[in-house]
């Protein structure tokens, strides 16, 4: 029996492609002058914080791998290809080369299945990794020296409502935690979503022109601040209880269930989260937030 595994940290790790674009890593084709520094510096602080942690794997739940039939898991050891963002192809054309911890993915899959969730392993080697997964992982660990587990998001918030999705995600979070404990591995979890999510529908000549960047509307800003305040106070149970309202009224990207999954996997933390930073990207609200699991 191996040592008991553990989730050593959970992170709200949003994935606007603008952040990778503005970082100018060699993997991304377009070049930027600057941009969205408050969020990029937030990710810098996250990376610094995680650099003191010993962990084996990043487990990422992405709103941009959307499935309607349950939850799917990447099930191929290696993926190497080009990811072009269908919405912002001018900003994100990223050559990725990543490793998947298929055995942990299979364990989470099996645990979720045991608990009655609909699940599937994705075993097609030609599958293209979604840009949400890539961006959250790149911003968290740009060296890609850890394998990942990639988890799809389910469309139940649109098919039914947010309550239905959240109920499933709470179960998936528990299954994720149990499987990680059984695996003996140390994992960092990434919920790859923005908070409020109303975009501008136009873009300037220079996408990184920060004189144009602001939140879409004050309503969204108030909601984002409310959620962040609860995170700071360790009141995540309250976040879950207002998740439906938040998702609907702030058109939040929590409709993919990533944040609900994360909070559940972290046992609905009562300790304060570390807010590494908040900023808007093309009108949407984004926070980089870390929950460091107590020793």
């Amino acid at each position: 029996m191996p040592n008991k595994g553990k989730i050593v940290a959970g992170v709200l790790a949003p994935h606007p492609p603008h952040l990778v674009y503005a970082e100018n890593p060699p993997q991304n084709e377009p070049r930027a002058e600057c941009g969205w520094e408050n969020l990029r510096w937030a990710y810098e602080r996250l990376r610094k914080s995680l650099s003191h942690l010993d962990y084996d794997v990043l487990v990422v739940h992405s709103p941009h791998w959307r499935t309607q039939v349950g939850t799917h898991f990447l099930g191929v050891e290696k993926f190497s290809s080009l990811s072009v963002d269908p919405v912002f192809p001018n900003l994100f054309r990223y050559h990725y080369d990543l490793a998947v911890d298929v055995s942990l993915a299979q364990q989470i899959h099996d645990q979720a299945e045991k608990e009655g969730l609909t699940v599937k392993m994705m075993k097609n080697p030609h599958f293209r990794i979604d840009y949400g997964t890539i961006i959250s992982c790149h911003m968290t660990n740009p060296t890609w020296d850890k394998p990942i587990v990639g988890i799809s998001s389910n469309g139940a918030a649109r098919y039914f409502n947010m309550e239905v999705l959240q109920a499933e995600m709470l179960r998936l979070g528990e299954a994720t935690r149990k499987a990680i404990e059984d695996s003996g591995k140390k994992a960092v979890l990434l919920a790859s979503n923005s908070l409020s999510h109303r975009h501008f529908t136009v873009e300037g000549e220079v996408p990184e022109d920060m004189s144009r960047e602001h939140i879409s509307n004050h309503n969204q800003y108030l909601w984002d601040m409310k959620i962040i305040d609860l995170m700071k106070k360790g009141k995540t149970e309250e976040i879950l209880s207002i998740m439906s309202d938040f998702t609907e009224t702030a058109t939040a990207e929590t409709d993919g269930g990533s944040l609900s999954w994360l909070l559940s996997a972290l046992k609905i933390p009562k300790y304060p989260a570390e807010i590494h930073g908040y900023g808007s990207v093309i009108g949407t609200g984004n926070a980089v937030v870390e929950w460091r699991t107590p020793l």
Partner: protein
Amino acid sequence: MSSTGKSPFGLVLPGLPQILLCPEKNPGWEKLFLAFQQLRSEMETQSIDGLILYSTYWPSVIGHQIQSYPEPQWTHVDDEFHDLGSIPYHFRVDSDLAQTINEQAKARGLHSRTVSYKGFPIDTGCVVALKLLNPDNRWPVVIVSSNVYADRAETIVFGKAAKGAIESSGKNIVPIIITSLSNRLHTHWIRPEEDHIHSLKDQEWNQKILEFLSAGRLEDVSQLSRQFHREARVPKVANFKPFWWLASVLGQNNFYTGRIYEYQPVFGSGAAIISLTPSDRAARDLEFDENDPEKFLGERQVIS
């Protein structure tokens, strides 16, 4: 070419991968596969210079995107149905027509852009429909996106941009919407032989739409879009837009001969292959009560 280009007819096509990758597994999927073949062989006898696809499977946020990469080539895998197999594709795009649509859209006040990037992820719906309808690239194509926030006025104007581009091209171009009717998929795995429309309500709405279209009542269906969106669509975007676009390109009226080639369930959704050919006689002379904007005057912030 100096004469005015036109659309000889328009098409409604489904885009789920079962029809292409495993039609033999369900008699209904096979009927759709065969209907694609029949449509294709009929089209090959006609004078057609190209296709424009409006895809509900390609959402955009920044205005409207128009595919202009001359030869997109990739091996596509669907996010959901990845176990059905991979779909290699190599398409031929009419980049000039894409540019003209873009210019016309901008002149009408829309935010739009062409996208021309190696490896751009063409959506499952377009890949499936083009592999079935246009496997040898007989006709060059343009693909346009569906903006998630756009509503009727913006979509009508975007359709007019395509219509204007077709006219100025001097060519015969077929506008195509890639869409299911009801779009609710099963949320659990089914055996192929168990496939059925997800609910009776979806089925009844699909049949109502088919009844209208078989009578050539495109504008009536266009004007039913909002209600259809509420009744028979999983609300993933602001509204059900493809028939607004198609009516705008073909002409906002009921003067059509409608032909239903096939209608079948695919994984719970309503998949139909339909042609609409302009004719002299209106199916029914209803009052068209929605306005007919020529220019887009900007977003009115009706959705928070």
